[in-house]
C-alpha cells in the first residue's frame, strides 16, 4: 500500500507562477523517500499543499488510503511536517512549544516521548530557555521535534539540514533512520545528494513543477549511464573556452579539487579513458591523483535536470 498517492496535482500561484504541473507520485508505506529538484522546482509547494498551508489548484491525493482533501483533519493527524522556513514562538520554551504543538494536533502531550525527542535532537540542555535565546540550528531542530511530537505515520522534512553542520546532520539522519526502521514513512528534500543516496530507498526528481523520474533508488542507480574519470589537482580549476572546446566530448565539470570527465565507449568498444586522460593532461598538466568511479546520484541529477542542485556560489 502507498502511504501517499498523488494524482495530477497542480499549483498556479495567484501571480501566475506555475509551481506544479500535473504531478503524480506514489510514496510507498514505510519508505524513505527523497524528493529532489533544483531551487524553484516546486518541492516546497508540494509539501505545503500536503501540510495545508498552500491551496492546490487541481488534482487529488490519498493518504493511507483516505482522500487527503475530503478527510483533511484525519489526514493531518498522520502527517508531521518540518517547514523549510525557520519559525519560532518567542513566548515559550522548547518544552512548552512541544506540549502546545502536541495539544493542537489533538494528542495529550506524552512527556516521555517529549523528553526522548529533546534528547535525540540535542535540545535537553536548552529546555528551560526561551526560544528567542536559541540559535538558528537549535530552532530548526525544535521544528523537527514539533513535527514528531504527535507521532505521525508520515514525516515530511523540507530541507531540515540546511545550515546544519556535518556531525549533527549525521546524527539527525541516524534518528530518522531509526524512525523509518520502526515503520514511519519519511519524505525529505535535501541538497546533499550523497546523503540522500545513502539514506533513501526511493527517489523522485522534479524540475520546473514536473516529475522527471520517480523510482526505487536502486533501480535508478542501476541505469548508470557511464563512469567518470576524476583528476585531482591541488588547486581549483576553471574552464576557459578553449578547455571546454577541447574536452567537449567528456562533458567536463570542475570543482574545488579538480576536474571530472564523463567516459564513454569508442566504436570499437574500447573505453574513452585513455583519450580523456590525455586530453585533460594536455590542458591542466599531470594530476596529483586520479581514478575512475561510477555515476552517483549527483551525476544522475545533473544529467536529468541539466542543473546543479544548488546555484553555484
Amino acid at each position, binding site marked *: 500500500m502507498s502511504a501517499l498517492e498523488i494524482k495530477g496535482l497542480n499549483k498556479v500561484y495567484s501571480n501566475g507562477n506555475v509551481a506544479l504541473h500535473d504531478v503524480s507520485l506514489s510514496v510507498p508505506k514505510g519508505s524513505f523517500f527523497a524528493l529532489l529538484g533544483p531551487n524553484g522546482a516546486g518541492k516546497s509547494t508540494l509539501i505545503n499543499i500536503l501540510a495545508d498551508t*498552500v491551496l492546490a489548484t487541481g488534482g487529488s491525493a490519498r493518504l493511507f488510503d483516505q482522500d487527503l482533501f475530503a*478527510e483533511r*483533519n*484525519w489526514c493531518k493527524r498522520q502527517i508531521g511536517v518540518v*517547514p523549510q*522556513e*525557520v519559525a519560532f514562538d518567542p513566548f515559550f520554551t522548547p518544552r512548552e512549544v512541544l506540549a502546545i504543538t502536541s495539544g*493542537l494536533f489533538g*494528542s495529550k502531550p506524552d512527556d516521555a516521548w517529549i523528553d526522548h525527542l529533546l534528547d535525540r535532537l540535542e535540545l535537553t540542555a536548552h529546555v528551560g530557555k526561551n526560544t528567542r535565546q536559541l540559535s538558528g540550528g537549535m530552532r530548526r531542530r525544535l521544528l523537527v521535534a514539533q513535527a514528531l511530537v504527535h507521532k505521525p505515520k508520515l514525516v515530511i522534512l523540507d530541507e531540515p539540514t540546511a545550515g546544519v553542520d556535518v556531525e549533527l546532520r549525521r546524527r539527525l539522519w541516524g534518528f530518522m533512520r531509526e524512525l523509518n526502521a520502526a515503520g514511519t514513512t519519511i519524505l525529505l528534500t535535501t541538497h546533499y545528494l550523497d546523503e540522500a543516496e545513502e539514506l533513501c530507498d526511493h527517489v523522485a526528481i522534479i524540475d520546473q513543477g514536473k516529475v522527471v523520474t520517480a523510482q526505487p533508488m536502486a533501480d535508478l542507480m542501476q541505469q548508470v549511464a557511464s563512469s567518470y574519470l576524476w583528476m585531482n589537482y591541488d588547486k581549483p580549476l576553471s574552464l576557459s573556452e578553449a578547455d571546454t572546446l577541447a574536452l567537449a566530448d567528456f562533458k567536463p565539470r570542475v570543482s574545488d579539487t579538480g576536474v571530472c570527465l564523463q567516459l564513454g565507449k569508442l566504436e570499437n568498444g574500447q573505453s574513452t579513458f585513455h583519450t580523456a586522460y590525455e586530453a585533460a593532461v594536455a590542458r591542466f598538466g599531470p594530476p596529483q591523483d586520479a581514478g575512475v568511479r561510477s555515476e552517483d546520484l549527483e551525476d544522475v541529477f545533473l544529467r536529468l535536470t541539466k542543473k546543479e542542485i544548488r546555484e553555484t556560489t
Partner: protein
Amino acid sequence: MSTMNLRGCMTLFKREVHRFLKVKMQTIVTPALTAILYLLIFRYAMGERQVPGLDVDYFTFLVPGLAMMAMMQNAFANTSSSMIMGKVMGMNIYLLMAPLSALEVVVAFLAAAVVRATVVAVVFLSVLSPFVDISVMHLGIILLYGLCASIMMGGLGLIAGMWAKDFDNIAMVTNFVILPLTFLSGVFYSVKQLPEFWQQINDANPFFYLTDGFRYGFLGIGDTDPYASIMVVIGTSLLTIVSCWYLWRIGWRMKE
C-alpha cells in the same frame, strides 16, 4: 471521520491566555496604572462636576465607559497581536497544519480575548473601587454587553491580524480605526452634550451602543435603551463570529 478536536481548541485557548499573562506589564499593570491616572486627572483636577442632563457626577459617569474602552482595546490587541506575531515569526502555519476546524480556531481566539478583556476590566474597576461608587444596577446587561464587546473587538482583531502583513499595518488599524472609534463611543461625554450633527455621526458608531449599554448596567442611566439594542448587539457579535469563521475557513491572506 471528521471528529472534533476539543483538545486542540483548548490548547490554543490556553496558549493565548498564557501569552497575555506572560506580558503582565501590558495586561495588568497598564490598566491599573491608567485607572490611577484617570482618577488623578478627572476626579481631582476636574472636581465633582455634574454631567449636564444626568443626575450623576462626571467621574462616576466616566468609570464604566473607561472600563469598556479598556476591554475593547485589549480584546482587539490580544487577537491582532497574536496573529501578526505568528505571521511574522512563521508560527501561524501550525494553526493551519493542525487538525483544527475554523470554528475551533475562532472560538479559542475569541474566548482568550474575552478572558483578557475581563481581567483588564476587573483590575481597572478594583483599583478604582475605593475612590468611586461602583454600583451594579443590571448585572445581566453588564455581562452581556461586556461579552459582546469583547467578542466583536476580538473578532475585528483577528480579521485585522489576518489582513496585516506586518506590525505597522496593525498599528495603523489600531491608531486610525480602533482608537478613534472607542474614544468617540461616548466614554467621555453624554451624546446629549453634542451638537446635532455629531449626534448623528455618533448614532452610526457601533461602539457607542456598547459603551452606553455597559454604563447603563452600572448606573441605570444612558442615552439609549440597552434592552432595545440587545438583539442588535447579539446579532453583531454573531456576525463577527461568522465572518471570522468564514475568513479562516477559506484561508484568507493565510494560504496562497
